[in-house]
């Protein structure tokens, strides 16, 4: 089924060809793994092990009591070397469990349950125990998402396979190679949410994935939707608009319009958690870009250092390079290659010297409206950037800065090279402060 799209947005170059034809390959084991105790939005975990302990692959090593939280597990067996603050991809220092990896790997025993018989309670419990978070990048604990408040009725589940970020192909490969797991995971999510209809949304630049899904799907209540290829089609609110023609209100969550969006990778993780009781200890990561010797899609153990993964793919070809965790539109450029791959990392984009620009010199806004025309949230990024730059946060608030989803399209099109997203990121906490002080 084809769908309409959302207002705004833009065709950005896809750059998918580097890795889209590369089958998922199991990455080699690193010498040490670094498991951050916080890989999700919400409260950090407390360690369940201490330095010197031996852990098995799949063993739970961190947990928290808080509702919005996801436990963490050892992705490989070995000895706990340290529990200390280490840098992660966001640039923050986070408490991490560092494990020295054994040569001989030992794993916890996995079950083999009949997924068709799983009750909603069993599914919720499996998802919680597996530490599953949104694998499209946001890393929100899935167990929270699949239990919306009882007064909000969700009637539509959307599986997000748009993968609108340039370069990235991990979701594409998952849809091709783990088609059945995806469909089964979708059914589990439908069951737990009690929704009849599920939609799997795929951008039309992935016709092979659409065909694979159509072929394997025999459930009339799972509808494969072809969306136009337009950035940011995969953004949650824009996807709901495109598939269901419903608009999530400002500051609101999808269930307020009866919708719930999950990444396709998350659905596969849910399936594996319910069937095998397998925790989220590995994920597919796209390592790509003009500047990596052998681009590909790798099945990577959580906690694998970035550098190990780059070497696995033949290393960086030319320096100076830019190594971006995630896609180039929203990802974070890295200065330290020791940071670990965590649950929410979709890909690593390695850009060549000529694309590896630092902070650009920018000039005044010339009010060309290119950002206005392409903003998917229908904001006025020009105004936000001017007031944000000047530190006039009250004005920035009036232009709805808080509704910005930081997709980056405004800065992408800006002919004055203004770092609009950076201004937004600077303004948001200040506006939050203003709003908090007003409440008091």
């Amino acid at each position, binding site marked *: 089924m084809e769908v309409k799209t*959302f207002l705004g947005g833009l065709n950005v*170059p896809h750059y998918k060809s580097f890795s889209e034809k590369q089958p998922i390959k199991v990455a080699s084991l690193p010498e040490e793994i670094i498991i951050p105790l916080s890989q999700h939005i919400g409260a950090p975990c407390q360690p369940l092990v201490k330095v010197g302990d031996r852990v098995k692959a799949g063993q739970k090593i961190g947990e928290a009591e808080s509702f919005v939280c996801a436990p963490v597990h050892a992705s490989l067996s070995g000895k706990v070397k340290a529990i200390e603050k280490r840098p992660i991809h966001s640039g923050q220092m986070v408490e991490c469990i560092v494990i020295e990896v054994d040569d001989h790997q030992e794993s916890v025993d996995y079950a083999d349950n009949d997924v068709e018989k799983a009750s909603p309670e069993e599914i919720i419990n499996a998802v919680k125990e597996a530490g599953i978070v949104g694998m499209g990048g946001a890393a929100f604990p899935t167990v929270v998402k699949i239990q919306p408040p009882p007064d*909000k*009725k969700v*009637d539509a589940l959307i599986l997000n396979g748009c993968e609108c970020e*340039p370069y990235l192909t991990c979701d594409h490969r998952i849809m091709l190679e783990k088609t059945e797991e995806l469909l089964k995971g979708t059914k589990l999510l439908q069951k737990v949410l009690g929704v009849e209809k599920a939609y799997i949304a795929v951008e039309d630049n992935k016709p092979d994935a659409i065909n694979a899904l159509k072929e394997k799907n025999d459930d009339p209540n799972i509808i494969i939707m072809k969306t136009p290829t337009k950035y940011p089609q995969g953004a949650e*609110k824009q996807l709901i*608009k495109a598939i269901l023609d*419903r*608009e*999530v*209100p*400002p500051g609101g969550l999808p269930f307020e319009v*009866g919708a719930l969006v999950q990444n396709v990778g998350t659905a596969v993780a849910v399936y594996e958690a319910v069937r095998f009781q397998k925790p989220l200890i590995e994920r597919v990561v796209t390592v790509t870009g003009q500047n990596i010797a052998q681009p590909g899609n790798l099945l990577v153990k959580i906690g694998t250092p970035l550098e190990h993964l780059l070497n696995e793919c033949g290393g960086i070809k030319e*320096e*100076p*390079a*830019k190594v*971006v965790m995630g896609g*180039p*539109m*929203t*990802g974070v*450029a890295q*200065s330290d*290659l020791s940071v670990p791959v965590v649950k929410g990392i979709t890909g690593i*984009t390695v*850009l060549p010297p000529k*694309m590896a*620009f*630092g*902070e*650009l010199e920018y*000039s*005044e*806004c*010339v*009010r*060309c*409206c*290119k950002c*206005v025309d392409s903003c*998917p*949230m*229908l*904001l*006025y990024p*020009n*105004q936000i950037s001017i007031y944000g730059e000047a530190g006039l946060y009250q004005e920035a608030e009036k*232009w709805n800065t808080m*509704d910005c989803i930081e997709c980056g399209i405004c800065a*992408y*099109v800006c*002919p*004055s*090279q203004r*770092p609009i*997203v*950076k201004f937004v*990121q600077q303004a948001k906490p200040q506006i939050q402060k203003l709003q908090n002080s007003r409440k008091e």
Partner: protein
Amino acid sequence: MNEKKKLVVSSAPHLRDEGTVGKAMRDVFVALIPVSLVSIYFFQWYAVFLIGVCLVTAVLTEILFRKMLKKEPTLHDWSALVTGLFVALLFPATTPWWKAAIATFIGVGVAKELMGGLGRNRFNPALFGRVSLIILAPIIAFVDQQFSALYLNLGRIDVITQATPLAMLHQGMEMPGYGELFFAFPGGALGETSPFFLLVGAAYLFYKGHIGWRIPVSILGTVVVLTFFLGENPLHHLLVGSLALGAFFMATDWVTSPFTNKGKVIFGIAIGFLVILFRVGLAPTEGVAFAILIMNGFVPMIENMTARAQFGKVRKAVPVSSGEN
């Protein structure tokens, strides 16, 4: 830990479109070349000289002002050259060169640089420069007497002495044919010689995505409707004077037009209305320039009144919802 790896970092996004302000301004300059060539065909060295004076003055003015303001020169953004060319196109070929130079100086120096540079100027610099000569008319007339010896004679051209089509229209004289007025007719300012070649340039800018349809269509539409009801000939009004130049090139100026879509339409309608008010009710010249400049001043107000609702603000019936919202 990772020895000798040269890594570049910056804030997201890490991809950028290739468009820059400089490239866009250069496109505007290119889009004005066809009509400039038509004017050179008619007015020969007069047109060449006038355009040259304005371009050189624009560049020198920008360098001078940015030096004074202790800022880096920004000639690479082409905006000085574009303003210079616009000013030249707003004058008749026989305009004394120093008048055009003063207009350019005021446009680039005062209306743009002193306002904070490209992006900060509220009024279209070229129009501001052109119109300030009208406002300063008594002074200009005085200077004129002193400097009449400086007038250049660049050869005799018959077309220079004839009445401009706009004046003909105003005085109810017999008008040239539509085809002639549309494709090429000498009379008035350099930029008034050929609506057709202006359209060619405008089409190029539209194709490049630099101008939209809202402002030109609402200006021209308003002019057609008003002239029709006033019993004037709408086609004549579309084809004469600097309406085409103003509607496609000057009212669509990024910096001085509204950034809201509804605002662009209101802006255009108001300009169309003012143009006809000036043309039919008042003096026959520079109605377009005054109309656009006046509306430039209203832009912030228009924007505030017409800003769109953000995503999700549109109150639409949601098929399912339970509880209160």
